[in-house]
């Protein structure tokens, strides 16, 4: 997979099956994919790779998704990278919390890989058109 092939997506999820599933399907759909298992790794990868979009699971061990998003959005270098929050918490308030933390979009699990790709493409278009 070469760097010219497509946008780089950073998938952050502590649940390996879900993370690898989304990573595999994104690659299958032509995206480049980097992976992180928690908030610290996510920040590390983001600063190092400067991805085009971050898929962020909010419930993470160590630094959680909300905190990681807040730090990304407070940093000059990563502020403009769109963050799509991904959570199994369907209770009301979860999406508001995510938006307050700086997430640009919010997707509830279960989310079919196909639907996720649709959302990723939509967000990338939004950024590109802005």
């Amino acid at each position: 997979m070469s760097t010219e092939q497509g946008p780089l997506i950073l998938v952050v999820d502590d649940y390996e099956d879900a993370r690898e599933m989304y990573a595999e399907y994104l690659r299958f759909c032509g995206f480049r994919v980097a992976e992180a298992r928690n908030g610290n790794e996510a920040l590390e990868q983001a600063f190092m790779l400067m991805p085009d979009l971050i898929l962020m699971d909010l419930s993470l061990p160590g630094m959680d998704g909300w905190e990681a998003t807040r730090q990304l959005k407070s940093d000059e270098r990563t502020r403009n990278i769109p963050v799509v929050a991904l959570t199994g918490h369907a209770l009301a308030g979860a999406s508001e919390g995510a938006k307050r933390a700086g997430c640009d979009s919010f997707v509830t699990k279960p989310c079919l890989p196909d639907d996720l790709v649709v959302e990723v493409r939509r967000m990338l278009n939004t950024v590109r058109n802005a």
Partner: protein
Amino acid sequence: MTPLQPARTLSRPVMSSVSDAARLELLEYLFDHHEDLARCARASLEWLARHAGTKRSMCLIVDHDAGLLVGIAGHGIPSEDVELFTSPLDARDPFVAALSAEGPTVVRPARPDSHTRATPSTLLGAGPLTVVPLRGGRDDDTSALGLLLLRPGTGPSGDISWLATVLGQKLDQIRGHGSLAEEVRKLRRERSLLFTIINAVTDPILLTDTEGRLIVANARAEKLFAASEEESEGRRRAVELNNMLFSAALSRSAVEGGSEARELLLVDPSEGSDLLFEVLSSTVEDPREGTGIVSVLRNITDLRRATEQIEENYQRLRVLEAAARAERDRLNLIIDSVADPIIVTDSTGETVLMNAPAEDLFTVPPGAPESAERNVQANDAHFSSFISGLLLGRTGPGEIRRGEIGLLQPTTSEINPVEAIAGKVQSESGELTAVVTILHDRREAIERAHLYEQLKLASDELQARVQAATAELATQNELLRRQAIELEQASRLKSQFLANMSHEFRTPLNAILGYTHMLLQGVAGDLSLAAKRQLQRIDSNGRHLLTIINEILDITRIEAGKMPIQLSEFSVNDIVPEVMAELDPVIGRSRLKVTPKLSPQAPPVLSDRQKVKQIVVNLLSNALKFTHHGGIDIAVQHDAHRGMLSIAVSDTGIGIAPEHHERIFEDFRQVDDSPSRQYGGTGLGLAICRRLATSLGGRITLRSHLGQGSTFTLTIPVEAPQ
């Protein structure tokens, strides 16, 4: 004893030659009564009165032994005053001085002072008196033997001096007999004593001669039978009448004989009232005075009056007694007619009277058993002790003593508790005359009190029970309150748990559905048809599981109040095609005709778009699930009058029996709850819909008949409450 003034009937004949004949008459008298000094003096004074016209005069003699001047006779003045008159031989006394004078002197007595001693002036009247010394015939006599006292200027002085000479010689003659003065004194004392005694008798005492003429009378009799010329006409007439009546009574007594008492009605000369006397007469023989009659009159006027009074009182008493008897009979009737026993006792506690009910308690009925007597004795003892308490106690008049006595029915020995009420009856003088006791049967009152006690006990018990129940209720309430808190906590925990669980469910489900999807997308290469069909089963079941999880989550959210309403303005007409689009795969599989019936004039509503849509999705998917042929209508209607909009989903499905119309809205309920039921689903759909509708200020109603389809209608206000 006082010789009476001669009554008119006794007056003596007047002689033709006054002077000589009269003087001779006096001398004869004096000769006859040579030894009686007082009588001679009195006769002399009377002679003077008759012949010289002296109205009042007095004779005194000298008693050398006693050293006194003594009165022995008087005329026109009370004889007792004369006889009691004495005066010491004091030379300073003008009367004593007159003894030494040669002839008559005029004495002007000093003004009478308050001295009690009588003087000649008090007897003969105020003013000067002529005092004539009485001398004997002998020359050596320097001092007179006595004095004659007269009012001056009365009668011819010749007669007076003649009398003085005669009387003086007579006095001298009598004194010549030696012990005469002594004898006179003795006689005077006896007479005085006798006179005092007889006058002290309050009954009139009279001595009369056989002709009825008065000889001697005591003071009381004089008042009735003697009156001087000077006394009033009425009095004199009364005295005259009394004399006549008395004479008549005496003569009647003489005719009829006997010495028993007779009644005599006389007139009181001073009062004019009638006086009734009882006369006791007896004949006395005196050798000198002859036969006389002594009469004692006893005044029985008061006695008679008292007797009459007694008689009258007695008659009145009889009338009163009869009235009292009638009253008593009437009272007895009344007392007997009172149902309560009444007992009247006297001041010693003895029973005086009792009515019939009292007799039942205090007397032994004839032929009663032996116990009856004992019972009556016991009753008597109880009653006596009660009464003695009253008799000894210092209860005043009108005060009432109350007490309770346990009496026995004599025949049955049944205990009969009575309330005794006793009052004292007192005479006007405050003396206790009787005690009246009424016994009031207490059995009824006791029974009532007993019932009341039981009632009170029951009431208390009831109250206690109510209190206990109230306390229990309070405890229960407290428990419930705690339980409610616990439940709320439990509910919160449940919600939290379900939220966490749903997250835990979603994570693996996400992977299942994701990988299934990827396989079906051919990410891992082409698949056989059989593998594709099997993967589709996995996918379908996974989605179903997801629906269940979502519904459980919705209920949880609503119950936890974490389902916020997000109001926006939208058209209900727009919702219908969106719902149909969402359920398009299901509609296609069902082969049913779904017809939207929109209402173009319906206004936009202000409500939660997401929730309205969720409800309609639910209603339509239910209709699709339970309808096997026919069609489904989705009709939008606007009720402008009530400001409501409705979306009605009508099907031609299996319908719902009326008894299930309410039940199907309950959580986890379907018409058929059995495990082998024909239709799937959580049974939460309608419960969620109803909750959501309520949160929007609306409701869901059902019209259905078994086998004829159902119509579920969502009605919401045009403007949802905030």
